[in-house]
């Protein structure tokens, strides 16, 4: 058969946080690793993110959050995914995520939590190894 289907990743910036350096670097690294990458751009509300997921049907969603809003926004995003019966997408959050918040986020079904100093290849491997479909 022909070539394997490319892994499709949606890189998102939820909330008002404008720190997009990490998100852009990761988006490019995933693209360089052969994935199809869509970057939402800044200031995405949970509704906008879920709408994009419905439209684009990605294999993985990477949320980048550095403003401390992860505990407020992640539950809303995960609830909305559930409402829309989306359960086969890997959802990861990274940025500035304190260790003590990780169990709460894990409980919601989020993974990854990569922070400053993470190597790009670690993130590429993480996506490849944790896909749900």
């Amino acid at each position, binding site marked *: 058969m022909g070539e394997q289907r490319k892994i499709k990743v949606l890189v998102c910036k939820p909330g008002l946080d404008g720190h997009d*350096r990490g998100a852009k670097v990761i988006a490019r690294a995933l693209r360089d690793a052969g994935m199809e990458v869509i970057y939402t751009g800044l200031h995405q509300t949970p509704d906008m993110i879920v709408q994009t997921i419905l439209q684009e049907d990605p294999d993985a969603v990477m949320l980048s959050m550095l403003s401390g809003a992860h505990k407020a926004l992640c539950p809303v995003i995960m609830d909305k995914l559930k409402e829309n019966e989306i359960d086969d997408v890997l959802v990861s959050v990274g940025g500035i995520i304190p260790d003590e918040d990780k169990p709460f986020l894990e409980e919601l079904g989020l993974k990854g939590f990569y922070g400053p100093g993470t190597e790009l290849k670690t993130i590429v491997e993480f996506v490849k190894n944790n896909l749900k479909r």
Partner: protein
Amino acid sequence: MTEIDESKTLKPTKTERREKFTNLSDITIKPLYTPEDIKDFNYDTDLGTPGKFPFTRGAYPNMYRGRLWTMRQFAGFGTAAQTNTRYKFLLEHGTTGLSVAFSLHTIYGYQADDDEALGEVGKEGVSIDTLKDMETLFSGIDLSKISTSMTINAPAAILLAMYIVAAEKQGHSADKLRGTIQNDILKEYIAQKSWVFPPEPSMRLIIDTIEYCAKNVPQWYTISISGYHIREAGSTAVQELAFTLADGFAYVEAAMKRGLDVDDFAPRLSFFFNSHNNFFEEVCKYRAARRIWAKRLKNKYGAKKSESMRLRFHTQTAGVSLSAQEPENNIARVTIQGLAAVLGGTQSLHTNSFDEALCLPTEKAVKIALRTQQIIAHESGAADTVDPLAGSYYVEWLTNKMEEEAELYFEKIEALGGVIPAIKANFFQKEIANASYKYQREVETRDRIIVGVNDIQLREPCATPLLKIDENVAREQIENLQRLRDQRSNETVQAKLEALKEAAKGTENLIPFIMDTIREYASIGEVMATLKEVFGVYREDSIF
């Protein structure tokens, strides 16, 4: 004890430890600099006397022998009352200027109970919705005695109006006030991304502020033209230098187009630069910045006053250089960066706290950061003579090189039609994205060593105590806002907002109209929503 295996951290070559030495702007550094490298060097035209054109050696004749730089620590979190307590702590420990960090919702001009503010209230800075919060923020602090810097851009005119009215209520007239509002929207489109309105109406608001302050708040710095965020977003030092000064030129041109005399406003423009890890590159960046600005203001914009040509700047050490791994190492990084800023002639300095890659700084970390500045000031001897690095073959060569590279960028920007067309063509955004990706690759291939991150890592669990923002802050802030809405005259607020809206459709200066809304306790969200109806909002392309 941990054995450090040198072969892992350094690339072995025959005679030198690296094939090529480059700085963070990718400029190749030679093994040795000699008089040959600055052959055409002319002391009078290239450097000159400190405090005189072209200001390469410093903005003032005797620099820190007269007065030390302002030690200004950026701070803000939670409610206005919480931040007020932190300010009093900083003042007690010898900080000499205040610097307000606002909550993200304030930065975007939303009020605490807007949907967009969910999860953000008080997290990254202090939550300010109305004049009432501003009054609380400076309660017990005499606004005629302190200088205050406010990092605010899209709604800068609104926060300035709140500050002026808060001072009025303390009994101080606007002409007594000293401070700075960042008010630099161009770098928002380029790097920091907290824009609201499209570029043209944003520029109008900025020029309105410059014009208003020239008449009414003469000691206020109306804009802090910022390279800091451009650098944090991943630019090189040369890009930071070039893009920031290009923004500066754009503001000067816009104000002159309004009909203002360059000598009436240029002395109140100020700059804000980053200080990253490559010590000499940073020092030379500041020296080059002063020289480029002075020449351009004199030769192109026809400034007559010396103060119009004199570039003054605030520096913050590079947040992006802080590592989350072994965070105590950041104390050493900040010391080197702070020293570079001082040897580059900064007018004020914020030194980052070592825990800032993890959270907003704790009190202990803030105190160490401030102490670092005091050690540089009083113990290092760096503040005892003006521009002590001048005349070094390397420093003068690199200062020239930074200027040349910046000039090449000015030509490119000019060819694109100026700063705003270049923003719309994503020129800056692409340049920065490329530079930050390249840097990250170099770190990963260990072409650049970040100590404790990519050389040798002791994997320890993070033991740094973190500052936690109470989740009740949002609830408290929203309750305050609702209480205020019950107390004020909503009818008067509506009338003032209506007047502002009408004025925004015309060409009048909007600052007096904004002040009228603020006096009636209109919220930042209400004022911004009114302006959005007339100005619209900006959307960027999502490139990476």
